[in-house]
């Protein structure tokens, strides 16, 4: 499978993803699935500027990503797929599209209504529903900010 990592992280592309994960996985491409960002050229430019030359960044809406997901998985380019919240990832996985995959919850920070379950994971009711939905779609969900960190299983996240 050429999508090496499915990750939920509200910072999307940032140092931890590029250096902590991307260098270890030798990733070649970052697939950012976000409805809002896919429509904003100037924000895309900011994210793209943070990535080293030679690495590719693709921005897509959830619908566009669903249309391309099988192709991305099959085409042999080592990729990291990112969404900023569990809801985007759950919509991507709808209908068993990601069955058998693993999703990494890597950074969901505090905002009103969210409660801390790990220092880097804060969840509200919508987040919990979406993570459970991912599991119901046959996806393994766990929390881990960096590759060497302890993996937190979904049942511990949902408490």
């Amino acid at each position: 499978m050429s999508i090496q990592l499915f990750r939920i992280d509200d910072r999307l592309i940032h140092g931890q993803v590029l250096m902590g994960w991307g260098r270890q996985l030798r990733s070649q491409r970052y697939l950012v699935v976000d409805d809002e960002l896919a429509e904003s050229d100037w924000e895309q430019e900011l994210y793209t500027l943070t990535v080293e030359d030679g690495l590719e960044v693709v921005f897509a809406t959830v619908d566009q990503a669903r249309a391309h997901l099988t192709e991305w998985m099959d085409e042999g380019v080592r990729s990291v797929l990112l969404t900023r919240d569990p809801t985007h990832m759950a919509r991507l996985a709808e209908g068993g599209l990601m069955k058998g995959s693993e999703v990494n919850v890597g950074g969901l920070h505090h905002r009103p209504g969210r409660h801390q379950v790990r220092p880097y994971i804060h969840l509200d009711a919508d987040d919990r529903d979406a993570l459970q939905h991912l599991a119901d779609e046959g996806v393994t969900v766990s929390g881990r900010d960096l590759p060497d960190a302890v993996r937190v299983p979904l049942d511990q996240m949902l408490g």
Partner: protein
Amino acid sequence: MTGGGSGGMRGVVVAHGKMARGLVNAVGRISGMEEGVLEPVSNQGRSPDELKALILERVGTGPCVVFTDLGAGSCTLAARLSCRDLGRVAVVTGVNLPMLLEFVFHRDLDFDDLLPRLEEKARAGIRILARPTPHVDTAVPD
């Protein structure tokens, strides 16, 4: 020197973990700058929206330079996003101590004069001062 008094630009240092606080503390110890000339902001435990709001709050209403640690990081992204529409704010990445000291002592300059100085001082502060002894191959040939 006390950082130039109440006039002049202010600075906000945005960095990972405790780096910003450490840098601002070090600048204060070296320069004796007044409190509030440089404000530290950490990204630790903050959502992108919280970080952007905090940067905007610290930037205030006057001219300001936002210093960030890593070009490819969430601090820089948040700084650029939050300051995008503020014509009175510059964002500079790759912050180091020489850069901040230059800022503190020349923050009365305008952006056109100040920003190249900051970049120059930061680069000039990086030098290799000693190298390990070259490896001597003592192996006896067959």
